[in-house]
């Protein structure tokens, strides 16, 4: 599988553009909510199908590539649906379908204002996310990354209360600064290597650069992608962004935006610097320290949060660094585990966020201390929550266990036992902050819950589907999409020769 052939195909371009194309339709259907929602769902399904058609070819080593136009001398705005890109694109577009259905239930149940802006912004965000996934070079990546920042802003400030507006400002401050730093990093890279193309194994091979300049360059990249990837201390926008409606937190801040960040980290480590350069300059150690610290500290902070969404936010911060840790290990199993965790965490976390949203819409409760006994009122929701939590703690047969297993193996392969300890400790902490919620829900008596019932079908069905997917992928990781095979393959193409 080491031989990759690229072939020209417009499909990646269509996959990016389809949701952009429906934005005018969404805006025009302002007065007809059902039609407007139809456009969103249709676009989501078409997008997913388009990406899915690229999967078989990619599994055989054929990469669809499409160059849109030359955007700067020597650099093209180009899309390349390599395996890693398809991996991320499948997750994002697939989960968008469920999120859209869930969104409809949520915004209507909550009688949210400005729904048209909501759905239109989502469509642009997903366009940008697929653009990030399929970006063939750093400049294309940056362009879509920045568009993603701007497109998510209206969603973060959606509720337009003080908390939301302040969260929006913090979000922009962090992400735009990161964008500026990323531009500097890309410019420097271009001046050193004369190319910005993502290449498995890195583009710095053969250049003899000083320790200082490579380290500075790496730190710039780390700051640039680290904000969206929630690496501490650049993570604080994420808990603040919980002021957004829950479907936004679910898809964007558990799947699309933050995963774009870690996607960027993996691209930087594997496709810009490459394992040899990372190790010979000691960059992997820097990355490891940040990732390890983030995992532990975020899990500890999560223990102290009473607001459910904030607890989930810090949990996300921790889990994102599982992925960063995985690639920092520079071992095949570690890389594979890290990449696979992108998929597993996505399904599990989105389930948890969906549950939080259902609780909010139905019971108007946001704090864990108020959740006594809700298991009796919302059994399906809380069952799904249990599945998601167990998976994040690393309990089989849920998919979280698989990625964690490989991360652990990777730690042993890389001879870094401390990584193993961090992973195990974090698993315990995960259990520590999730299980009390489940305990409260099922084993404590609630007060005044008689009049409430389970959430609407539009919300419960997506919740159940993502929970079931988490279990299915845990039992058979390659089901439907061969996610695990892709993770293995990407890892080996990056590690080749290392």
């Amino acid at each position: 599988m080491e031989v990759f052939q690229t072939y020209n195909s417009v499909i990646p371009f269509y996959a990016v553009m389809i949701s952009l194309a429906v934005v005018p339709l969404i805006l025009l259907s302002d007065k007809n909510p059902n039609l407007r929602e139809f456009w969103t769902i249709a676009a989501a399904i078409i997008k997913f199908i388009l990406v899915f058609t690229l999967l078989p070819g990619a599994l055989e080593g054929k990469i669809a590539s499409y160059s849109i136009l030359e955007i700067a001398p020597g650099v093209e705005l180009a899309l390349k649906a390599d395996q890693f890109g398809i991996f991320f694109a499948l997750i994002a577009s697939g989960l968008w379908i469920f999120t859209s259905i869930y969104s409809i239930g949520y915004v209507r149940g909550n009688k949210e204002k400005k729904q048209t802006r909501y759905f239109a912004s989502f469509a642009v965000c997903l366009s940008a996310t697929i653009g990030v996934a399929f970006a063939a070079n750093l400049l294309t990546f940056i362009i879509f990354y920045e568009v993603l920042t701007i497109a998510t802003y209206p969603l973060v400030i959606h509720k337009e209360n003080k908390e939301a507006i302040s969260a929006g400002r913090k979000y922009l401050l962090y992400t735009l600064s990161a964008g500026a730093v990323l531009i500097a990093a890309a410019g420097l890279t271009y001046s050193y290597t004369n190319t910005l193309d993502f290449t498995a194994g890195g583009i710095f091979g053969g250049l003899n650069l000083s320790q200082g300049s490579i380290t500075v360059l790496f730190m710039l990249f780390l700051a640039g992608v680290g904000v969206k990837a929630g690496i501490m201390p650049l993570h604080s926008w994420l808990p603040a962004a919980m002021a957004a409606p829950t479907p936004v937190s679910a898809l964007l801040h558990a799947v699309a935006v933050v995963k774009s960040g870690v996607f960027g980290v993996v691209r930087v480590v594997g496709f810009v610097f490459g394992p040899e350069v990372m190790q010979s300059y000691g960059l992997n150690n820097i990355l490891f320290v940040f990732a390890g610290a983030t995992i532990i500290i975020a899990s500890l902070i999560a223990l102290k949060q009473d607001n459910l969404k904030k607890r989930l936010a810090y949990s996300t911060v921790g889990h994102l660094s599982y992925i960063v840790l995985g690639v920092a290990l520079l071992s095949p199993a570690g890389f594979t585990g890290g990449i696979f965790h992108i998929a597993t965490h996505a399904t599990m976390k989105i389930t948890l966020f969906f549950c939080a949203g259902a609780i909010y819409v139905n019971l108007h409760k946001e704090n864990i201390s108020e959740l006594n006994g809700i298991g009796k009122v919302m059994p399906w929701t809380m069952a799904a929550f249990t599945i998601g939590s167990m998976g994040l703690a690393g309990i089989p047969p849920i998919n979280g266990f698989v990625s964690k297993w490989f991360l652990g193996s990777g730690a042993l392969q890389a001879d870094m036992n401390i990584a193993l300890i961090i992973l195990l400790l974090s698993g315990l902490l995960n259990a520590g902050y999730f299980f009390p919620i489940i305990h409260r829900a099922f084993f404590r008596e609630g007060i005044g819950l008689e009049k409430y019932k389970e959430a609407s079908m539009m919300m419960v069905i997506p919740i159940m589907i993502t929970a079931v997917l988490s279990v299915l992928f845990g039992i058979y990781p390659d089901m439907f999409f061969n996610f695990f095979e892709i993770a293995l393959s990407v890892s080996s193409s990056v590690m080749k020769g290392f």
Partner: protein
Amino acid sequence: MIEKNIPAILPLIFLAAALFIPLLGVWKKAVAYPIAIITVLVAASVSVYGFIYVLLNGTIRYFFGGWAPPIGIEYVYDPLASFVALVINFIALLVLTHGYHAVNIDVKDRQVAYYSVVMLLLAGFNGMIITGDLFNLYVFIEISSLSGYALIAVGEKRAPFAAFRYLIIGTIGASFYLLGIGFLYFMSGTLNMNDLSSILPFIKDSPTILVSLILIVIGIAIKMAIFPMHGWLPDSYTYAPTTSSSLIAPIGTKVGAYALLRLMLFVFGIDYFSKDLQVAELLAIFSCGGIIYGSIMAIAQKEIKRMLAYSSIAQIGYIGLGIGLANPLGFIGALLHLINHAFMKACLFLVAGNLRLKTGNSDISQMDDSFRKKYPWTMAAFTIAALSMVGIPPLAGFFSKWYLALGTIENNAWLYLAVILISSLLNAVYFFRILEKVYMKSPEKEKSSVNDQVDFNSEEVKPSMLMPVIALAVGLVVLGIFNVLLVDQIYKMMPAGL
């Protein structure tokens, strides 16, 4: 053949119009506007035709009166000049279209004189761009400056004072320039740019040439409002009528920058400019000062036109920085930003004019959410222009900053790189402040209830005021995506040795 005469047609057609408008205006006032708009339309069309012709057939040289240089005055219409002429004539066309109503309101009784002076201004600009003779450049600098002073003085109460200040400072600048070319003439015996560039290598070691270069740079820098010689700009842009500021802000300072670029590149040559004299370094440092100063002051402003004025100081700083870097990427960034900023500022000033017309004031604190509903298209165009100013891809502003960033990296000028990136964030602060207000702040009127479904019908401005704004915004998108076409042309234009 007509084509051979295009270099002369462009300035002359405006001079002719400037003459005819008052002559016919005495008979019938209403004739002023039609003559003006038709002249600009013809000029824009001729510019388009000329640009295409020159791209295909090469530079056109026009000798006034048939006298060959270096005795006679020569106009050099090469692809670069033709493109810049095209841009400014096109923007002038859009601004004058907008002016149909704007001038009616701002300058009620003196329209005949107003339009005549506008024609003179445009004659001055066109002449400055195409001329190949140093003294002729001075003549047209003065023509455009004097017209500029008059156009500004027609504004509100404090306008004549602002115009007077501009007059004094501008005349000092022009006089410096005159002195500079006087010394050059004394040493070289020629006023023709081309001729001078071949003679200079023989005389460049003389201190007189150093003095003349400094005088020329300072003179033009005053016209460009490079920090700290920017003092005339804020008041002039703020108190001038909408059409005047929309003509002078986007175009006026840029033409000065263009003249400086021409002189540095084609007459003095990069080496002399940067290595032998280090004038370039000084220009770059002062420009950085202007960038930071302009951005910070813009944040502090309460009135939108003044905010845009300080923003212009910052943007001109980018152009000055690009010139001061004295490398190809820097020049490309400067030229690209010259064009991009012309579009962006024209759009922003026209929007400010529209808002002023509709609400009667330009206070930022008075802007609120109703604007979004009342003037949807105007605010949409404003949003696009604002995002472009901040540097969000794929809009035009991102690319000029990208080239400037690459230029600073090539010189290892890390401080300048940091200045560019930090100022983008500062730009975001003052633009997003307005965007927040316009899209989210509820109007504080007792009549409207808390519910934001209050009916504000669209009271969008008239088409003649709306179309130019939208055209400019669309132009920003196009300029961004297709910037390579432009950049390739600029590359070809660079003199050999770069």
